[in-house]
């Protein structure tokens, strides 16, 4: 019963686990990616209750509910088994996502709309917290010892592939309709949520056909499963020490590197460098597509040379290169309006400033430079009704389109950052699985994973904003948070972790 599975069987195990996990990530991401549209539909500006619910939907789902989901479903997975637990998380996630797409807007049902969306978002966070540990444990417990890193690395591709699929589906829907049709109450923004139910249906069908993990089945048959996984994980000092080591010596650094490479970089290009919306997304998609196979490479290599040093080298490279990479983004997007070139067109819109008789003049101009750079300038002037005076606003350069060479240079730099992600993330499932015994594995590995990714990783934009508001002189000051966390993790990992591959995880 506990013999290593055949190649065909392990392929089925990996496909069933990876597909479901990828769909869960897809479900989780589309909410964030469509946040702007969602907020206008469900959380209208000027309503304090809706604003509070919006804040909770964004922050509580990631920071509180994900680790809580890790505890709830981790415990369940160690009590009743991996298969049924991560089947449950998939149903919960898919159902919540589909239902978010069905909730009428605030304009139709009032405050019930944001309350329903908040509840469904919290369910999503809970389900995500339970999914990963189950999938990683399930695959690892089916894998032969010499291929554990390689097989579990397929699970590691799912977070990035989920992001890729979410970006792709949203771009596809958006490109087939007007902005008005996309943003309407029952418009195209709901399609990605509805698509989820089909994806989840297929995944549930595949997962239903799978058998329970052989190691868990053996434990259960022998009556050796844990009676209280939470107590045994966190109140048993020897195991709790390993939970702390997993969190501070590996997962917290991995979390910030993962978040910086895949999210902060895109937000930096879009909001700080003002790169065109479509370009900032397509360059991410290309970089992700090229970097994703490296998850498998590092997972495979970790079976040969151990997990520790691959993760530590990834962290070290990120620490030393983040600032130069982001500085290049800033330098290469420093566009100036040339005096010798006239704009291609000039659009002026006049509107009344609310509550006064003063007017706002918004002028937008488009420029195309000989070196291939394209951009838009936006200037807002104010005409004061009483004095007749004109206050000239600052010229802002927005929607910068990068020339071909710079575009590919940026693709390369994003690729490099995602390569670091693959180094720290590729081997980590096998690493975590090997740290804990079978009977409390699901619980023990899920909590540090979701604190590292949900809390440490999820805080990257908030702490970045906090630092850049406090220290305004340095536009790259926000990077000190991921760099600082990665340094601490690198020191702890280098000093305290062992590079040994645990061949026997059946105990």
């Amino acid at each position: 019963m506990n013999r290593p599975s055949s190649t065909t069987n392990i392929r089925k195990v990996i496909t069933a686990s990876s597909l479901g996990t990828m769909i869960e990530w897809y479900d989780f991401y589309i909410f964030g990616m469509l946040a702007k549209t969602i907020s206008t539909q469900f959380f209208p500006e000027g309503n304090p209750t809706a604003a509070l619910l919006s804040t909770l939907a964004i922050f509580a789902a990631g920071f509180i509910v994900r680790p809580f989901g890790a505890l709830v479903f981790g415990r369940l997975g160690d009590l009743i088994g991996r298969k049924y637990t991560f089947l449950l998380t998939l149903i919960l996630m898919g159902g919540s996502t589909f239902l978010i797409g069905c909730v009428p807007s605030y304009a139709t049902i009032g405050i019930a709309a944001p309350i329903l969306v908040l509840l469904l978002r919290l369910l999503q966070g809970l389900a995500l917290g339970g999914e990963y540990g189950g999938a990683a444990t399930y695959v690892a417990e089916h894998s032969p010892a010499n291929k554990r890193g390689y097989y579990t690395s397929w699970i590691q591709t799912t977070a990035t592939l989920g992001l890729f699929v979410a970006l792709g589906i949203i771009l596809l829907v958006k490109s087939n309709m007007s902005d008005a049709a996309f943003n309407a109450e029952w418009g195209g923004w709901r399609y990605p949520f509805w698509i989820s139910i089909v994806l989840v249906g297929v995944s549930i069908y595949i997962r239903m056909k799978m058998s329970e993990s052989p190691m868990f089945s053996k434990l259960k048959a022998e009556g050796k499963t844990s009676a209280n996984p939470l107590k045994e994980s966190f109140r048993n000092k020897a195991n709790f020490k390993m939970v702390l080591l997993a969190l501070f010596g590996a997962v917290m650094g991995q979390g910030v590197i993962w978040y910086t490479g895949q999210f902060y970089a895109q937000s930096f290009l879009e909001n700080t460098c003002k790169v065109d919306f479509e370009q900032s997304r397509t360059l991410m998609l290309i970089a992700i597509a090229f970097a994703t196979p490296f998850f498998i490479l590092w997972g495979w290599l970790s079976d040969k040379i151990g997990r520790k040093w691959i993760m530590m080298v990834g962290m070290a490279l990120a620490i030393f290169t983040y600032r130069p990479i982001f500085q290049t983004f800033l330098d290469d997007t420093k566009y100036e309006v040339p005096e010798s070139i006239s704009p291609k067109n000039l659009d002026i819109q006049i509107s009344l400033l609310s509550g006064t008789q003063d007017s706002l003049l918004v002028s937008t101009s488009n420029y195309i430079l000989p070196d291939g750079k394209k951009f838009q300038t936006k200037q807002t002037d104010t005409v004061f009704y009483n004095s007749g005076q004109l206050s000239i606003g600052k010229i802002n350069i927005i929607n910068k389109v990068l020339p071909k060479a710079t575009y590919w240079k940026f693709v390369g730099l994003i690729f490099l950052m995602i390569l670091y992600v693959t180094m720290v993330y590729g081997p980590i499932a096998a690493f975590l699985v090997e740290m804990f015994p079978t009977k409390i594995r699901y619980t023990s590995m899920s909590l540090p994973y979701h604190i590292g990714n949900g809390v440490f990783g999820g805080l990257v934009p908030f702490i970045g904003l906090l630092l850049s508001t406090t220290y305004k002189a340095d536009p790259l000051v926000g990077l000190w948070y991921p760099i600082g966390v990665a340094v601490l993790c690198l020191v702890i990992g280098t000093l305290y972790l062992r590079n040994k591959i645990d061949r026997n995880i059946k105990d």
Partner: protein
Amino acid sequence: MNAFKRYFGLLFLFIAPFVIFELVNGAIKNIDPAGTKDINNPIIWIIIIAIFTPIAIGLVIFGWYAFKGEYDHLPQKSKDL
């Protein structure tokens, strides 16, 4: 190497309270009901400080264990846990 591990444990013991102090300080300086940014929102600060405090306590415990030499030798088998 084990001596290094123990001395670094002391460092982690002090980093954790410093982080919480900085977070509380950041909250006091930035919470502003009239502000529109995330860092002006008290709810976000409450969530972050509430979730970070047990993590910081975990780092203190980790530092203490390291200082006491509990990480000098890691368990070799699950039965050692």
